[in-house]
Every structure is written in C-alpha cells, then in structure tokens.
C-alpha cells in the first residue's frame, strides 16, 4: 500500500482539505463550518431531530433527488431538440444509440420518486405538527414547492412527444379551458366582452397561453421545454434556498417547545 500520510502532507491536499480529522469536538464543528455544502446545516442539532425515525429523511432526500434530476436532465439536454420533427427521434436515438443509456430512465423514475418523496415530506411535517408557529410561512413555501414539483413533472411529460405524452398533456391542459373567466369554456368568460367582441375565446384564453396554440403542437412543445428546463427549476431553486434558510432561522429541525 502507498503511504497515505505523505499524500496528506502535499500542498495540493492541504490546499483542498485545510485540516486533518482528529475526532475532537472542534473538528466535528469545523467539518461542517468549513465545507460549503455541509454548512447548509448548523453545527449541532437536536438529538430528536437528527433521528431517521423522526424526519424519515424525506426532505433531504427530496433535495438529493432534485439534484440527481438536474444532473440527468442536463445530460439529456445534450441529445434532445424540442421541435416536432426531431423530439421523438432524439428520444429514440437516445434509447438505441447511446451505450448503456439509462439517463432517460434515471430522469423519468427520479421524477416519479421526487413526487413521492415530496408528498412523504409533507406527510411527515404534518404528522409531527412541525408546520406550527413559527414555521407557518415555511410550510406555505413547502406547499408551493410541492405544486412546482408536480408542474415540473407535468411539463416534462410532454417532451418525449409520443402518444402517451401528447394525450396526457391534452387531457391535463383541457382543464385550463374551463378556468372561470380566463378559459373560453369557463363560467363567466362570456361576460367579458366589449359589445359583440368576445375578449376570452379559444385563441386568447389561459389554455392558449399555456400551449402557445389551440391544441398540443409545436408551440406547446417549445413552451413546455422552456418551462421544464429553465423557468420552473429557477423558481424552485430560489424557493428551495428560502425554504432551507428559513428552517435554520425558525430554529432548525422542529422539536417540542
């Protein structure tokens, strides 16, 4: 075996890892404080809060799943073009020509998993009464993140551009047609008119805004691609930052008062 100690004395090693690890309280604290990733955490937490049996690790796992989705999603973006003529063939090529290609599987199953872990996280937070003051607003942010998670999955569902994708989005987006006042088949939409001119019709309602057209077509594909890859993730990341920061400011993982 090589001499590990010698490597640890090199300038390269020391520049990366500022200190060795001797198992002292000071070092345990320093490990968290001097690492940009670990320092999302405080140095110390309630013993009850550190238990797997209390948190089920569902929130942390949701974040980890999100990171794996970002990585696999970026890899997929190298192969995928969001146009009607290329989208399906790119997915087909991804399956048939990329060696050991499980990227799409990692991304799709990861998306399903994230929905389950986010629901599970909400379930745990409710069952432990962790939404109560002073954590009310963080619960609200959590609910928004939960909705964003489902919207992320929903927008991604269209991208393979197969029958499953197109008709699932058709069924889903048909609901928008019936939005009160804003959808052309929604209650109240008929009231919004100037003289004989209807303000809300199938070419101007909320469904049209979502799909960029009257049906799920090229416009919808591009919109969903941008919503899925840029728009919603950006909002989600900002809200996640607030969500994590507020956990710290509201007193860490919840415990009995």
């Amino acid at each position, binding site marked *: 075996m090589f001499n590990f100690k010698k490597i640890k004395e090199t300038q390269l090693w020391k520049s990366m890892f500022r200190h060795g690890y001797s198992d002292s309280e000071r070092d345990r604290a320093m490990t968290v404080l001097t690492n940009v990733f670990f320092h999302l955490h405080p140095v110390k*937490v309630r013993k009850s809060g550190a238990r797997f049996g209390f948190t089920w690790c569902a929130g*942390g796992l949701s974040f980890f799943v999100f990171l794996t989705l970002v990585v696999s999603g970026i890899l997929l973006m190298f192969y995928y073009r969001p146009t009607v003529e290329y989208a399906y063939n790119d997915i087909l090529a991804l399956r048939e020509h990329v060696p050991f290609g499980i990227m799409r599987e990692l991304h799709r*199953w990861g998306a*399903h998993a994230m929905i389950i872990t986010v629901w599970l996280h909400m379930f745990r937070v409710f069952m432990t*009464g962790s939404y109560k003051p002073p954590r009310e607003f963080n*619960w609200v942010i959590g609910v928004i993140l939960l909705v964003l998670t489902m919207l992320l999955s929903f927008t991604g569902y269209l991208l393979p551009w197969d029958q499953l994708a197109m008709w699932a989005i058709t069924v889903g987006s048909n609901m928008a047609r019936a939005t009160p006042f804003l959808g052309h088949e929604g209650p109240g939409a008929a009231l919004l008119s100037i003289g004989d001119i209807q303000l809300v019709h199938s070419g101007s309602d909320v469904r049209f805004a979502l799909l960029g057209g009257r049906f799920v077509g090229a416009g919808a594909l591009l919109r969903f691609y941008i919503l899925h890859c840029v728009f919603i993730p950006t909002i989600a990341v900002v809200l996640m930052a607030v969500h994590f920061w507020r956990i710290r400011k509201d007193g860490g993982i919840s415990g009995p008062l």
Partner: protein
Amino acid sequence: MRWVWNLEFILNMLETFKEFINSISSPVTIFTAVVIIFGIFVTFPRQCTSKKVALPAVILVFLFFGIGLTDDHFRKIISTPDNVPIVGMIFIFSYFTWYAMKKAVENDQRMEKGEPTIEQVETNEKVYVFPYLIYIEFVVALVYAVGLVLWSLLLKAPLEEPANPTVSPNPSKAPWYFLGLQEMLVYFDPWIAGVLLPTLIILGLCSIPYIDRDTSTSGFYCFKKRRFGITCFLSGFWILWILLILYGTFLRGPNWNFFGPFEEWDIHKVVPLVNVNLSELVFIKWLGMGLPKQWYLREAPGILLIAFYLLVPPAVLAKTFLKERYTQYGIIRYSILVMLMLLMISLPIKMYLRWAFNLKYIVAIPEYFFNI
C-alpha cells in the same frame, strides 16, 4: 392424477375468487369500504397499529397482490412502467402512516402517564451534525441512488408511437399524480374538478398553520390531542387523493368506465347514462310539472340547497360539535376552517349522490357554463 386434480381445484378457486372480487367491485363499494376501514383506523389507532392487527393486514395485502399477479390483466396494469411507482407509493405511504400512528400512540400513552414524549426527552440534548446527521443523509442518498440505478436498469422508460393528433388513445389519461383530479371529472365539471378544487387544495394546505396554531403539540408525534386535525388531513390525503388516483389508474378503462381489478378492459362495455339534474328531479319527477323557462326559477331548489349547505352546518357546528373551536378560533378563523371542511366533504357527497340517485348537477346553468 390426484395432484392434477388438486391443481385444477386451486385454479378454480382462484377464478372464483377473482370473479367474486370483480362482482363486488364498484366505485361505491370500494369507496365505502375504504371509508369504513379508515374510520376504524382513526377510532382505534392503538389496536390498529398493534402487531395483532397490522401483521395480518400486511399478509392479506400481499396475499391479494400475490393472487392478483396470477391474473394477466392485473399484472399488465400493475407492471405498466408508469404505474410501478404508484404501487410502490401505496406500500411506502401505508408503512409510514402505520409508523407515524404507532409513534403517536406511544407518545399519547406516555403523556397520559405524565411522562415526557420520546422527542421531549431528547430535545434539549444536542448532537454534532457531523457525523450523526450527515452519515444518515449519506446512507439514505446512497440507498436511493443504488435503488434508482437498479430500477432504471430493470424497467425501460415507456415510449409509445410518435405523437399523432388524429388518433386519441382510449382511455386518455393525465400523468398519474393528476388522476385523482381526472377522476373528479366524473362528478364535477372541469371548472370545479380541474380548477376550483385544485386551487382550494393548495389554499387549504397553505392555511393549515394559520388555522391550527396550537404550539403545545408542535414537533412530536401525537394523536389524541390532534385527533380532529390529523383525521381531516389523513382522510383528505388517503381517501380524496390517493384512493382517487388508484381509481383513475387501475380501475378506469376505455371511455373512463369502471372495471374490477381482474376485469379485462372491454372497449365495448356500455354503461347507460341515466344521470339527471336536481331541477328535473324536483319539477318533473316530484312536482309533475314541466321545467320553468327562466333559469333562476328552474335552478332555485339547487341554489337554495347549496346556500343551506354552506350556511346552516357552520352555525349548527358552532353550537355543538365545534363549540370549543369556535370560541377559541374566533369567527374568521372558524369560518375558514368550516368552509374548507364543507368544500372538502362536498366531493364525497356529490359522489354518493351520483351513485345513489344518478344525480348529475345540483345547479345546472349551461347558459353560463355554470354547473355544480
């Protein structure tokens, strides 16, 4: 010979069992059964989370799945790639519901004896995040990563024919996490099932911490002191969300017809549409006259009924069942709580009205796309 006879006997038994399950399967029987089981669970949480009840329940569920897997149709539905996570989810949430309730019951017993809860014992003790928490996170992330890779290797992501706007598959289904909403379309118009109710679910969830501000039960598992809140949440989650997703995924076939778990999805199954509106029931069937011409006269019974539903129960509950909450919460918080509850319960009410009386709309004003 004797062995062959036995095998045949077992196969016959299986067929009989599957036919029996199919024959008793309908939206109303399954829904009612789940409501009853849920009622028993929240009424007797201590007994239901004990090994004596939980273990046989687990064995029964696995037995059902085991028998189910011998059926071609059931296996096909369960193993459709996008449905696999739902099956996983049922087991995950069943387990964690049991686990949370078990911890809650344990803490309830401790509090009754005047002892601190498990969390209260440890809450003032602090541990270093490194290594205690980071190791847990590391192991969980590792287990998940390995699990995901295995899952991805074993199961291909689905890819059907290229998108074709002229050929619509039957049934056309939304992604599985929205199938609860799609199932609601059977009972409500799209503006309620697809817009109003989802908005109310989101707003209702957001309002939870502003309605329930009692911090004495914050940060640990317990049930007795939060019986009302936890029952509301669990019933909404399990019955109105997860169960409806299961309906939409596993039991709704072509034309959104209902099929038993072992029933082949027959595209030609005809279900007579005999739904009637409340106005037709009142004016034609009960009063024996024609429908009034003006919509506000025609729909007066329905509008009165809905006004009654939204106004009377809150007043009655404030004097009876929710008296303490009314005095404690004040009129605004109380009204929001009761309104959300009534709107939540309106879904199963509408479902039962459909099943019992074939009732389509309580208020139907197609002139304004306004149907309830």
